[in-house]
């Protein structure tokens, strides 16, 4: 647990932004924050129990207003992605079930879209499977 905690904070110290906010993205900034935190939780970069930075600290690091982060954390608490403990900040919730469900839905829609594109390109099922395997291997290689 401490290992992960240190990991998240080392990322901050290096300013490797694992949340990147886009000015040109028409969606409100707080929505971007919510989505990116949900995604990190879903893929396991933020395991359950990881301490999230305080609202003020995250606002300072991302150069956005405090109310933006407050709102994002409020939403994330409401949908169960994070838990806020009185006076002790927020942590990633122990029950990743909900976020997994969200990511499952996302995966479904991505796979459907990929299937459609594949058929537009005239790729066969085998070809699509090969491409999928290739993508997984690339990801594994990158994660090493």
């Amino acid at each position: 647990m401490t290992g992960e905690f240190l990991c998240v904070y080392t990322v901050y110290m290096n300013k490797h932004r694992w949340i990147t906010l886009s000015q040109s993205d028409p969606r409100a900034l707080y929505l971007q924050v919510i989505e990116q935190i949900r995604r990190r939780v879903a893929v396991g970069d933020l395991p359950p129990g990881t301490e999230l930075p305080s609202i003020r600290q995250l606002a300072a690091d991302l150069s956005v207003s405090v109310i933006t982060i407050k709102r994002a954390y409020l939403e994330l608490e409401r949908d169960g992605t994070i838990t806020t403990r009185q006076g002790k900040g927020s942590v990633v919730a122990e029950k990743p079930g909900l976020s997994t469900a969200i990511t499952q839905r996302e995966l479904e829609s991505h796979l459907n879209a990929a299937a459609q594109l594949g058929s537009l390109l005239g790729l066969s099922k085998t070809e699509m499977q090969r491409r999928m395997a290739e993508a997984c291997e690339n990801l594994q290689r990158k994660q090493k």
Partner: protein
Amino acid sequence: MSIAIAPPHTKTAAAALRGVARTFKHFRLDNIDLEIEQGTVNGLIGPNGAGKSTIMRIMMGLLTPDTGTVSVLGQPISSREAGAKRDIGFFSDDMRLYKSETVAFHLQFVRSLFPGWDEAYAQQLLSRFGLIAGQKVRGLSHGQRVKCLLLLILARRPKLLILDEPTNGLDPVARQEVLSELMQIVSDETRTILYSSHNTQDVEQISDTITFIDRGRVIARNNRDEFLERWRRIRVQAPANWQAPAIAGLRPESTFGNLRVLTLDRYQAGVEDRLQLSGATLESSETMSLEEIFVAAVMRGREENEL
């Protein structure tokens, strides 16, 4: 037996102006009521000449108002008192350093006046901002000069920052460096920022509370998200003789043939229905960017004033 209930804890005000007014030869600042809550980032937006700089200078005690009270960090402000300035960092677009002297000279000069100076942080900022201690101010570019001034402010760890157009004329890289450094202050809830700009994008990004100023008066003041949520631009198609229903805060903006564009400053569910009922066909109802809200608010304020 009744139990006396203590009033809710009032948030500490980092600064408060009440009924402040000042007349100049060609400009008048009129009845300004402004309160800055501690721990917040406050944006002051206004066109050029609206009075932003005047308000900030009055807050610093550099200008004396004709009427009204000014209190900053709990102390009344006047030109006689220097005490409050120890905890305030003021930046103004037209502030200049001594051209013939070096950055290091200014660091040493300011340091000698502030017991709370953080030398380690100052050195960090020097390298972060890409400034050279031995360089004369004369040789600095505009962006470097701004960063140097901000360094001199930030290294004192002020409780309140009053910044008059700090990002004016900065290239995008410098702007990011400056904003990101300023936002570090936000992580401390006892420190407050008030800054003015006519760049609404900056303000939209980092402010908690926003105040609009035009022609010496406060036009509107609200929490940033409230602004963005309450304003709408509504486009309808309506015949020539159509009159907009009397909905609070609804104003016509423009007309083009059958197309009517209106703005609304306090959105409530059901507005679109009422418009439909009044005989107009709804085309769209969209949120507005802060810049659009600002322009609309200013225009309304000017129209109201002319009546």
